[in-house]
Structure formats: structure tokens, C-alpha cells
């Protein structure tokens, strides 16, 4: 059954010969139920409140548009998510490429370097960044000892710190999908390109890179969406000066108890995310129509 499921998942085909409707529904039902209870209901409730609390009103949405701070936070969130995605791609692709080309002990070592952070709590990793970046942290100490600066730099609670820490935390989500695609591209293809007259960079740009785009698309999309709603790291490393949508929403719900307004904020974030995902997928429709291998 497992291999049949895998095959179906891979082919994206729905062959009615493999499972009947009832069986298929039975297989998805538990997860569906969990999602309904733990995700759809609370989110729906939140969004509902943003329009119907106390009566049908758009006043909460009006506040977002009228108050420049909220639009600024939305814009900053999109900007940081975008920069983090680009940085994670630029840093992650070479790592994924190297991993795909290694074998044996070295590959395991690099894979461990990618996976161990993933298994470590984001909270721990964010605190680690605080230790590194704070006023008397490692970076400032080093710079002072080297005589490059007189007084400690303000590193923590800046946009740069948020971008740095978030890129680090989200990097595995970029590396792993790209790696899994790259590993499935036969080695012979790049060799064939070289044999047919392509230089090494040409072979990469015309063969390996285009074939790895589905992985890059998955990695960038996942990183971008995670970054848009990321809470722990921006809250700890960014502080009040680098407010992002998630921190703003947390304030509204836990400190100000303004649930309808938090609902409106999340609706705006959700809508912008969906819009961007749709646009992105449309732009990436080039990866359809071929299979690797």
C-alpha cells in the first residue's frame, strides 16, 4: 500500500483502479478532521469576528488602511520575507548542489549540518543569535578587540538581525527540496551537455539549473510563506522596532485582547500570501510538461 501511495503521489494521477472513493476518503478522514477542528474552525472564527463583531462592520479593516503603522508593518513583513527568501536561495542552492554531488561520509556530514538545526527548536536558535549579536556579544567583543570599533555596535533589534536570524532558521526548508530534486537529476545529463560542447557553467545553466527549478520553486515558496508568518525569531531578535505582522497580531490577541482587529490583520496577511502564491505559481508554469529520468 505504501508504494502504491508513493507512486500515486509522485505521478499525481488518480487511477480509480487503485482505491475506491470510500477507501480514499477513509484514508484522509482523520487528517481532515484534525484540520477542521484545529485549523479551519479557529481561523474561520477569527476571520468571522473581524467582520461580524459586534455587528457587520468593516471598521477593523478601515483601521488597517487609515493607520500608516499597520501598512508599514505589512510592507516590512513582505520585504523581510522576500529578502530572507532570496538570501536563503543564494546560500542554500550551492549547499544543496554540493550535497547532491557528495557520497558516503561527507554527504552524511553535510546532511547532518543541515538537519540538526532543523531538529533544534527555533527558540533556542533565536536565543543563540541574541547571544551572538547583543551589545557585549561575541561579534561586538571581537570587533572591539580587533580595534575596529570604539563602542559596541547596535546589532540586535535591527532589521538586519531579523533577516540574518530568519535566513538561518529557514535555510533547511530551502535546501531540502532543492537537494531532493538535484539528486534525482542523472549525472549523465551534465556529462552529455559537456560532451556536446557546453562549458561547465553552460551545462549548469542550461541543464542542471532548469531541471532543478521545481525544487527551487518549492523551496522558495515554502521559505517565503514560512517567513511571512514567522513569529518567534522576529519577536526575539527584532524587538519592538522591527515589528512584523505576526508580532503585531500576537500583541493584539494576548496584550490588547482586540481579537476582531487581530482577525482583520490575519485576513490581510492571508490574502496577500494567497495572492503572491498564485502570482508565483503562474510565473513558474514553465516547469510543467516534463519528467526527470
Amino acid at each position, binding site marked *: 500500500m505504501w508504494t502504491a501511495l508513493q507512486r500515486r503521489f509522485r505521478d499525481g494521477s488518480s487511477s480509480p483502479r487503485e482505491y475506491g472513493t470510500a477507501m480514499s476518503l477513509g484514508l484522509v478522514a482523520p487528517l481532515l478532521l484534525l484540520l477542521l477542528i484545529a485549523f479551519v474552525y479557529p481561523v474561520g472564527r477569527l476571520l468571522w469576528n473581524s467582520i461580524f463583531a459586534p455587528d457587520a462592520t468593516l471598521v477593523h479593516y478601515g483601521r488597517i488602511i487609515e493607520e500608516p503603522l499597520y501598512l508599514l508593518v505589512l510592507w516590512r513583513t513582505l520585504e523581510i520575507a522576500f529578502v530572507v527568501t532570496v538570501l536563503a536561495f543564494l546560500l542554500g542552492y550551492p549547499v544543496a548542489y554540493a550535497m547532491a554531488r557528495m557520497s558516503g561520509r561527507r554527504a552524511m556530514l553535510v546532511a547532518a549540518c543541515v538537519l540538526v538545526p532543523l531538529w533544534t527548536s527555533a527558540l533556542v536558535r533565536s536565543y543563540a543569535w541574541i547571544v551572538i549579536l547583543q551589545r557585549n556579544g561575541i561579534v561586538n567583543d571581537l570587533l572591539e578587540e580587533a580595534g575596529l570599533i570604539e563602542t559596541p555596535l547596535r546589532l540586535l533589534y535591527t532589521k538586519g538581525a531579523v533577516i540574518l536570524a530568519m535566513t538561518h532558521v529557514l535555510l533547511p526548508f530551502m535546501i531540502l527540496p532543492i537537494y531532493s530534486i538535484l539528486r534525482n537529476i542523472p549525472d549523465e545529463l551534465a556529462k552529455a551537455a*559537456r*560532451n*556536446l*560542447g*557546453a562549458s561547465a557553467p553552460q551545462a549548469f545553466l542550461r541543464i542542471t539549473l532548469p531541471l532543478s527549478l521545481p525544487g527551487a520553486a518549492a523551496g522558495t515558496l515554502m521559505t517565503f510563506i514560512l517567513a511571512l508568518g514567522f513569529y518567534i525569531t522576529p519577536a526575539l531578535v527584532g524587538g519592538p522596532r522591527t515589528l512584523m505582522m505576526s508580532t503585531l497580531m500576537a500583541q493584539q490577541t494576548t496584550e490588547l485582547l482586540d481579537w476582531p482587529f487581530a482577525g482583520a490583520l490575519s485576513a490581510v496577511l492571508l490574502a496577500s500570501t494567497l495572492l503572491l502564491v498564485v502570482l508565483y505559481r503562474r510565473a513558474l508554469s514553465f516547469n510543467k510538461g516534463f*519528467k526527470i*529520468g
Partner: protein
Amino acid sequence: MHGASVSLRELGKSYGPVPAVERLAIDIRPGEFLSLLGPSGSGKTTLLMMVAGFERPDTGAIWIGDRNITQVAPNRRDIGMVFQRYALFPHMTVAENVAFPLRMRGFPKTRISQSVAEALSLVQLEGLEKRLPAQLSGGQQQRVAVARALVFEPAVLLMDEPLGALDKKLREQMQIEIKRLQQSLGITVIYVTHDQEEALTMSDRIAVLRDGYLEQVGSPADLYDAPATAFVADFIGKMNFLDGICRKLGADCLEVDLGRSGTIILPQQPVASAPPLQQGQRVRLAVRPERMKLDRHDDRKISGVIEAVIFAGASHTFLIRLAGGEIIHVQTQATHGGSLPQEGDRIGFVIPDDAVHVFPQAEC
């Protein structure tokens, strides 16, 4: 296009302490179809990868025509190559795949489309230009790979077990087509295979490799009729082997003691044994099944008991167990009428003197 000569000069390559190719030298003539034949791990693919430029030889040199390409990058060698699993670019159409080497060489667009059309008609794939490789059958993919490897008119074509993935019937058809294409273009082909029948069918010459060493290079008939080593004798075609000890060495006369199975007397020094044989030396005799003749009356020759008779249309094969326990295959033309020897019959056989190859058993 015209084929170029390829000269492999004392090539050596090892991975760690294990030699993959050892001091290997072959001179391939322009327009020749040379097969590299050997079991897996014999170094034939390593050798091909060195010619293509994907492996760097530790020692020796590779020349194409009058050009030393040992240090030349793979993309500057101008050698066509058909990979084992075709290595077609899955995101490009048939036409784009075939155009790839021309685009890499910066040819003008009109010239490219003309050459692509010519190459595709050469392999009879007109009309499939816009298909993606995944939409083609195995045989069609194979043809695209050949077209792509030939479109830039290389003087040398490398083929790495190109027919391994095809079924038997299609494979035989492609063998003929590839051979025809090679002859009409006059291109030099180096063809890697582990299938001796394929090598015998297609090649002008065959180089038999074993553990990185060149065992013998020669025409299919040379290898079949005059194998240089017991390994070649065993690898090419069917062969009976009998182990024995040299007993008497006359001027030209030689007696081989096969132990309990009897003795064989050879009136002259066999061709294959280049170093003269010593008294008491262990030797291995090799005789093709079709060169042996059954003989019901002559009881002076060695004899055995028929274990099985295999009918294969045009011929019969008799499996005969000798007194020493060896099983010998004797193949005869199927005859009509007359009684055939049966299972369990005791029977002798005659071996023509020139059918016996003698190999010294230094390696045993």
C-alpha cells in the same frame, strides 16, 4: 564527414590502489568500428570515459588524428557520444536536444534548423521534432541520442552500451541500423558492450578487456578462430575446456595427459601457444563444440557417455561426460534419417588437430 584515427597510448588509470585500466594501447583506424568487450569491471567504461574526457588518465596519452587530446576539456574534443540511458535533456524537445550541440557552437539559426532536419531524417524521426523525450518510445529515444551525437559531424563516435535498455528484437534492428549509419558516414566508432554477440555482429575489430588489461584485439574471426588467451576463448562463443599436463615433446609432437579422461596427441605445436611448452607443464585445451565430431567406431580416441541431447533446429548438441568427469559439448548439423546416438550411449569423438587451442596454465 570522415572518421579520424584514435590512438590510445599506454593508458593507465587507477582508483586508489585498484587499477581500472593498465598500460593499454590500441590504434583505431579512421572509419573503423571497434568494440570494447569485457565483463563488468573490466575497465571498458573507464576507457571510454577517458576518451570522452570525463576521466583523466594517470599515465599515457590519447590522440585523435594528429591531435593530442589527453588534456583537452570534454566540450572541446568534438567527439560524439551516445550514453547508456541516452541522457536526453528531459526539458527540451527532440529538435532542441538535437540542436543543442550546434547552439553551443554558436551556429546561425538557419544552419541549425537545416542540420537538425538532416540529422533527424538520418535516423528516420521526421515529424517528432516537437515531442519531449518522455513522449517517445525507447527506440525513438535511442535514435534521438544518435542524431544528437552526429549532428555536429564529429569524426569519432563513442557508444556506451547504447542498446542495453532495448528488447532483443529492437536491439537487433538497431544493431543493423547503427552499422549501416556508421558505414555510410565513414565515422570512427568506439562501442562499449558486454554482449559478445553484439560485438561479433557489428565490429571491424574487437578489443577484449579483462581487469583493466587488454587481452586481445582483432577481427571477430580472429578472436573466434585464434583466441590469444583462455579468457578470450571462453568469452567469445562457446568453448570446451580440458585441463591436462604436457607429457611428451617430440620435434613437433605433443601428448597431453588428461588424467582419467585419456590422452590427446597433437602432431604439431598449436598456434595459440606462443612460448614453447615445457615437459610437465599444466595446460588447458580449448575446442569449439562445432569442431568436434562424434565417432561411434573409433575406440582409440577419448570417449564418454552421452548425458543429454539438445535439439536446436539446425543443430544437435550432445553433452558428453568423460571418464574424468568433465562435460564436453559437441555440436553437429541436424541430420535427417539415420539413427542418432542416444542418452546413455558410450561414444568417442574425433578432434581435428587444427581445432585445438593450447593455453599454458600459468594463471592457475
